[in-house]
């Protein structure tokens, strides 16, 4: 029993409201990613679950226990920190066993768990080294080792990969994911990197300004963004959010049902869903093209608004050239321009 449930959790410092009415559940054995730009409250949420901060109001449950007022050690959690939090004066083995020593686990058991963790993480030959003698990826593994030997059902991760280079980050996130599944841990993982979130999460919670924008599977966040912010945050390059000026409306004239015509709208469309058309497309001006190898990104302009479209392969346009583009109804996302909320198309799209 290690599901994590937050109910009406608020946190404020003096007059700054860091979290406003947070409600969510992370199911047992699942990996939940808290995603968002810096300052959105995702780390604060994690620290509340860990017990390093206490909420101003609301309650936190882990499994069937209310842990709102318990100190971290009584919550049966392990935590991996952004800068790994390795003690520079202790070697790898001592660092991994730090928590077990503090909890007075017996020596034989310590040895056994250390051996298991070192085996899983490939740290056997480094056990005698000091953190300063390790590379970034190895330090990350030691930090993971500390979480593994704790043998607790909940693991909290605070941007664990942000100090690694891109290639290592990819390796490590796969490793973390497979570790989480193999050990059946309930994991809450904080990151600002949407690619990381999309690739490892069972569920993602996207946060903004201390509130939850959307809670769902990666596919839901991608295919059915609940707000314009979500659409723009998830996906690379981000979703184009366009204002319905006269030109833009004429560009997608056929695509907006009359039922929502009257409202103030934002039109969202993903770059990969914009097609190049021969005949019935609308004319736009190419501003720039970027060739990425597998894809080409083409930045286009209609009057004051620019948007990006992405096509596979290599396409060559000269700047200032006029091309015809369009997109189909099922790829049109409509948002209310006042609050950014999604407007469902009747009978349209998925």
């Amino acid at each position: 029993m290690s599901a994590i449930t937050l109910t009406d959790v608020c946190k404020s410092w003096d007059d700054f409201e860091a979290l406003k009415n947070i409600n969510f559940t992370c199911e047992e054995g699942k990996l939940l990613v808290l995603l968002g730009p810096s300052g959105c409250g995702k780390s604060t949420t994690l620290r509340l679950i860990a017990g390093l901060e206490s909420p101003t109001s609301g309650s936190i449950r882990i499994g069937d226990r209310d842990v709102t007022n318990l100190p971290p050690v009584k919550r049966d959690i392990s935590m991996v920190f952004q800068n790994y939090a390795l003690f520079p004066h202790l070697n790898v083995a001592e660092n991994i066993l730090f928590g077990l020593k503090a909890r007075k686990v017996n020596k034989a058991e310590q040895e056994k768990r250390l051996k298991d963790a070192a085996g899983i993480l490939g740290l056997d030959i480094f056990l005698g080294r000091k953190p300063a003698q390790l590379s970034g990826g190895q330090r990350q593994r030691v930090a993971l080792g500390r979480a593994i030997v704790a043998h607790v059902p909940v693991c909290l991760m605070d941007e664990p990969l942000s100090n690694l280079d891109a290639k290592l980050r990819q390796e490590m996130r796969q490793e973390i994911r497979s570790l989480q599944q193999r050990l059946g841990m309930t994991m809450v993982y904080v990151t600002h990197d949407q690619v990381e979130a999309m690739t490892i999460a069972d569920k993602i919670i996207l946060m903004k300004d201390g509130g939850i924008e959307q809670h769902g599977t990666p596919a839901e966040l991608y295919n059915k963004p609940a707000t314009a912010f979500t659409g723009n945050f998830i996906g690379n390059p981000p979703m184009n959010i366009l204002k319905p000026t006269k030109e833009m409306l004429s560009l997608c004239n056929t695509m907006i049902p009359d039922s929502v015509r009257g409202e103030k709208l934002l039109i969202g469309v993903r770059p990969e869903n914009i097609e190049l058309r021969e005949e019935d497309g609308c004319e736009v001006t190419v501003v720039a093209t970027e060739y990425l190898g597998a894809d080409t990104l083409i930045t286009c302009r209609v009057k004051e608004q620019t948007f990006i479209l992405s096509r596979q392969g290599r396409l060559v346009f000269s700047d200032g050239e006029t091309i015809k583009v369009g997109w189909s109804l099922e790829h049109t996302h409509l948002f209310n321009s006042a609050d950014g909320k999604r407007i469902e198309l009747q009978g349209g799209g998925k």
Partner: protein
Amino acid sequence: MTPPAGLGSSQLEIITMKTVKGIETLGAWILGALWFLPVVFAFWSAFHPAEYSTNFELFAPLTFDNFVRAWGYAPFPRYLLNTFFLVTMILAAQFVLCTLAAYSFARFNFVGKNVLFALVLLQLMIMPEVLLVENYRTISSMGLLDTIPAIGFPYMASAFGIFLLRQSFKTIPNELVEAAQVEGVSAIGILWKVYVPLARSTYIAYGLVSVSYHWNNFLWPLVITQSVNSRPLTVGLAIFGAPESGVDWSIITAATVMTMAPLLIAFILFQRQFVQSFMHSGIK
């Protein structure tokens, strides 16, 4: 392509840099020599008969006679023991008191924290000599006149130590503390397992400063002690300089060499560690 004749700007820069470097080295040598000459003189005079103490002759006869005479003049083993007790006691008390004070200033929030810390800093700005009379009165009222703890008491809650350790504790990343908290380590455990080991170089550097200061301290021990039982080396040494016993440079220097020898040997042995600690702890 060869550069044109004459000095290019880059060459000029290199020459300027070399000159500056040269002047710096020369300055360092002069300062070093200024510091070292009295030591050389002390050694020279201590190991030669009195008639050579102020004139230099390369092959002057060596002698240990001065040491033997100085040793006989005063109870040196007792003084040495007193000084050793004194510095050990002060250092131990300082480590305990300063560590606890610095920990509370560095990590906890309490009412009046800033005022208290300002008071601690204020103590740094008062010369200990100013408090000579007041301290004497306090010690006297405690009935501790002429004892070794009396010499140490005024220095135990060292403002310098508190300040130094607080600075060093403040550089320790909060993440490490939180990692320990998650594992259930208590506040005292965090001090002992996280803060103290990570501030090791500061402790070494501060220990060196403290030991050498109290080994050499003179005025306060002179005022507060009267008997052989409590006098440290420096005060004991002073009787050699007293007019009634006459000024015998050979004996004074021999006694001085004996006084500073333990520190000098310790410094030479641990020189590398000391220098590294100072680099780490930012005291220069």
